[in-house]
């Protein structure tokens, strides 16, 4: 199992090295298939690890493997960082999601990126991402976690800015990287606390000793949890560090599916679940997690209502769904959060890849107003998108319900916020998800779509279609892992050792599911009928004029950051550059230069070039010396 775990981690890295060294000596198709094969091989290793863990006793499922000492020194006072991975229920679930969904999406990319001049580079970056993400979820200590954390940010930067000939992707990539760096710094400072107070960053020792060195609710305990939360919030695009995610849609669609829906953006949830001991140690911060989750899920749901770019609708939906996961881990129902993370990985990747098929077919058009009526020409895509939409609204799998049930049962005051916010959010979800389907696949086909839609060779090549179909099947099947109602909770039981779980009662389950289905269904039905008549859409919009404007302005976060973050920083930089460098440093330089020059000129005056003057000075000097010594001799 140890070898398999290491293989699972390092196979993608080997792929990067091979692709980088091979360069253009291998064909584009060969490079794409190589990357895909490697991703699948990594998944096979991950699956093998999963089954061997399943075969072990419940209490012996956590393993730490160390390859070598990564950083440190002989001096034992220096922080020692082993290159170690921790394989347990939590990480193996993430390994399966990352390598499994990842492999499918890499395969999908073969068709999507076909013919791009930088196709080989794209696949190398995808494998780099898989390695980084696996490092993040498998790491056995916080420094390695941070390494993975930063490297997924790097891969994300490279892939968002993949089409770097244009301005927008480059700007979006830089924004994503810098905002994620803020999160990295948060985790780094949390690490400083650990090193100072515990002397190590290995998960097991930190979690065992956390209670002793940071008493529950003490300011240090709160700081550590809060700083980890900063990292989680930045990576998972939650308020207030969420503004990079919609912009990140500038990247190719498979990237949006893999990084910005299925895996990387949910890393924050994984982090909080992994560090549940530290968050349990800081109850106030944990409540803050729930509040942030609810606020984000509502805000993103509202913004998604008014978006017109198909990928941005799904991006805001992602933000909103991660809000649910944050809400779950915020009320200490970590396994429900992880279950939603799992189902979301399937159905959101499905939605993105389905949208990718549409975008691909429409010659890179992403505006939903220029689509419409596609269901007639793309029946299979439509069907698969419906599977994703039903999952998103929350009819099946019941992962969103599980979050709300847990909040109702054991969430306390924060639980009520989550419960009510979650139900309202479910209605929003029903509205925006159905609106997307209604606008893209039904109604009148737009002129643009008529001109550009070319489905002569089927809707998409099989390499694109197969992964989407598998994801759809997965989205349905994965629901059986945890149904609730006292029927089965395999997933929660499996994770119970590593992540806290809340078991709600059957009546609570029934009530919640009824309410959630009702909210989602009502929203879906309402919007379906609404779009029958364009005049009513306009009427609704004018009734909620203010709200729509705020939503279209994305609640003004970008402007806020521009004004309180970017502009002051630039002002400071300009001031330092013009005042500091030019006047103060430049002034000191000028002073040094002029002093030296003045002294030099004064000394140069003595060099008259007239020999007799020199001789006079010489004689005078000799005379003085003589007088001095004669005087001494007399005394």
């Amino acid at each position, binding site marked *: 199992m140890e070898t398999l775990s290491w293989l699972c981690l390092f196979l993608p890295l080997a792929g990067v090295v091979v692709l980088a060294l091979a*360069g253009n000596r291998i064909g584009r198709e060969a490079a794409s298939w190589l990357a895909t094969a490697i991703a699948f091989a990594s998944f096979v290793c991950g699956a093998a690890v999963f089954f061997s863990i399943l075969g072990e006793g419940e209490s012996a499922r956590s393993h730490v493997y160390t390859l*070598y000492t*990564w*950083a*440190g*020194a*002989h*001096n034992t*006072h*220096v*922080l020692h960082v082993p290159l170690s991975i921790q394989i347990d229920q939590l990480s193996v679930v993430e390994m399966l999601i990352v390598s499994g969904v990842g492999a499918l999406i890499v395969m999908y990319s073969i068709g999507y990126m076909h013919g791009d*001049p*930088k196709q080989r*580079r794209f696949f190398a970056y995808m494998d780099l991402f898989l390695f*980084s993400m696996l*490092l993040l979820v498998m790491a056995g200590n916080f*420094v390695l976690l*941070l*390494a*993975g954390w*930063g*490297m997924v940010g*790097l891969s994300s*930067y*490279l892939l968002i*800015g993949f089409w*770097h*000939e*244009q*301005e927008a992707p*480059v700007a979006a990539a*830089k924004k994503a*990287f*810098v905002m994620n*760096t*803020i999160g*990295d*710094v948060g985790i*780094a*400072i949390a*690490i*400083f*606390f650990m*090193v*100072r107070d515990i002397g190590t960053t290995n998960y097991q020792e930190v979690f065992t000793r956390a209670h002793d060195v940071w008493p529950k609710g003490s300011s240090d305990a709160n700081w550590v949890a809060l700083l980890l939360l900063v990292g989680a919030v930045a990576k998972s695009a939650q308020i207030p560090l969420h503004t990079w995610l919609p912009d990140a849609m500038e990247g190719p669609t498979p990237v949006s599916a893999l990084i910005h829906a299925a895996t990387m953006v949910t890393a924050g949830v994984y982090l909080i679940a992994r560090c549940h001991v530290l968050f349990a140690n800081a109850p106030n911060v944990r409540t803050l997690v729930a509040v942030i989750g609810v606020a984000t899920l509502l805000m993103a749901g509202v913004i998604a209502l008014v978006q017109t770019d198909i990928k941005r609708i799904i991006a805001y939906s992602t933000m909103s769904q991660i809000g649910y996961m944050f809400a779950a881990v915020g009320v200490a129902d970590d396994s429900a959060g992880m279950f939603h993370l799992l189902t979301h990985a399937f159905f959101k990747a499905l939605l993105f890849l389905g949208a990718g098929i549409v975008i691909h077919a429409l010659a890179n058009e992403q505006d939903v107003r220029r689509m419409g009526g596609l269901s007639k020409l793309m029946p299979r895509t439509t069907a698969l998108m419906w599977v994703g939409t039903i999952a998103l609204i929350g009819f099946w799998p019941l992962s969103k319900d599980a979050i709300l049930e847990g909040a109702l049962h054991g969430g306390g005051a924060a639980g009520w916020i989550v419960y009510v916010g979650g139900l309202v959010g479910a209605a929003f979800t029903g509205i925006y998800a159905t609106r997307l389907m209604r606008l893209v696949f039904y109604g009148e086909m737009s002129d643009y779509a008529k001109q550009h839609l070319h489905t002569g060779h089927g809707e998409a090549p099989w390499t694109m279609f197969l992964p989407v179909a598998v994801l759809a099947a997965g989205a349905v099947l994965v629901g059986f892992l945890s149904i609730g109602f006292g029927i089965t909770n395999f997933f929660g039981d499996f994770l119970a050792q590593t992540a806290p779980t809340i078991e709600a009662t059957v009546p609570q389950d029934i009530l919640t599911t009824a309410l959630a289905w009702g909210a989602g269904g009502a929203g879906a039905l309402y919007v379906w009928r609404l779009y029958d008549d364009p005049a009513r859409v306009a009427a609704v919009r004018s009734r909620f004029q203010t709200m729509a404007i705020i939503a279209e302005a994305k609640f003004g976060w970008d402007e806020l950051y521009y004004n309180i973050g970017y502009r002051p*920083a*630039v002002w*400071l*930089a*300009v001031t*330092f*550059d013009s005042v500091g*460098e030019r006047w*103060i*440093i*430049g002034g*000191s*330089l000028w002073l*040094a*230069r002029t002093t030296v020059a003045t002294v030099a000129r004064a000394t140069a005056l003595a060099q008259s070039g007239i020999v007799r003057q020199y001789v006079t000075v010489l004689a005078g000097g000799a005379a003085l010396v003589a007088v001095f010594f004669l005087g001494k001799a007399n005394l």
Partner: protein
Amino acid sequence: MTVALIVLPLVCAVLIGFLPLDRRVAAALGLAAVLAELVLAAVAIVTFNVGGGTQFVTDRVWIPNLIGGADVHFHVAMDGLSMFMVALTAVGVASAVWTAIRAGRDRLSLYLGLLLLLEASLVTLFTARDLVLFYTGWEVMMIALFVLMGVWGGERRRFATLQFIIYSLAGSLLMLVAIAGLAVEGHSFDLGVLAAQGRDSWWMFGAFALAFCIKAPMFPLHGWLPDAYRQSTPEVTALLSGVISKAGAYGLIRFAVPLFPATAYHWRWLFLGLGLAGLLYASLVAFRQPDARGVVAYSSVGQMNLIIIGIFVLGPGGVFSDNGLTGATFQMVNHGVVSLAAFLLIGLVELRTGTDALKSLGGLANRRPVASTVFLLAALFALAVPGSSVFISELYILIGAFGEQPLLGAAASLGIVLAAMYMLRWYSAIAHEGDGERVDATTPDLRLSELAVAVPLLLILLVLSAWPFGVMERIG
């Protein structure tokens, strides 16, 4: 071993500099010399006994009874820090010599001779255990640099050199006085003997620290730097930023603090405060620079100030912080290689476009896959992407700083965000979007002979990232 490392470049410097050699012979001899030096440095690293303290010692009396009854010794030795600084010097000068030969500098044999003289002096000062010997190395280094900067380079090179001379002399003359003072009081020039006496003298400490902090440079003593980095040839700038700045930090670690532990401890907040101010200040200024060299130059100032923070996280009695010093020394190696790579790469851009003004550049990544990858890697290491060796060393410095004062560590961490901002701007301005006005479809990708310098430097960084412990366990 150590003596061979000093004598080899020195002899070759004299041969190449003074013999009327043909250009090509001089180039071949110069290249052979730096490669042999690299091999020697590699042998030293391989044969180094981990945990064995100071090794490769040579100690002979050089000038008996100079002043105060103190003998000047030719005393050289290497511990881990010295060894990796020597290795960094060997790598830096080797890449500089190769770049100079490729660029075809005027009066090549003299140029190579001076580079080799610089190498000999740097190795001397990194290995010297005697104050006079160290000072000799320090001054010979300056002289070689003055000529390299003043004769070759940009239009305003004389002006830049003059500023550099003023700053350098101000520092090193005071240091000379302090060395004499130490010998009079302590009756020795030997580092070990003097350090064991543990003196407390604000003016001697100040003189040493000033010389080293000018060279590093510490904020606000960096006035000479922008002009010097902009006017020198790319390889000299690379050496200035990659290796010579490390001589300043090395001096602080090896001399200023151990000779005056109590004084250093007493004044540590001056250095910590200025270091923090310098880190944030230079990082912000780097964000506004209009040229590629300017960005990396100020980034270099920021990083050196971070190293100074790592050095001056001192415990009572002037004891270095374990994590801080490990990070600072490792960062000296990392930052050395990173700035060598960055400035040599800028040199390649200048060779193609004739400018390093960011507004005239752009689009280098289009259709030029090798350049795209190489520049990207350099930028990523420069911004300390997590997982890289640079990240590890910065993390250790910050851990040390946080242990001293949480706010210091937290504030210095902001440097990471700023580094991301200015390095991404740098990379995007060079590589991204459409072609800049000085770039077009005919601008060539990197050639094999150019990769011969860039790839080894990046490989070193990749290896260090995979196994930082390899250096960290030896350097401590």
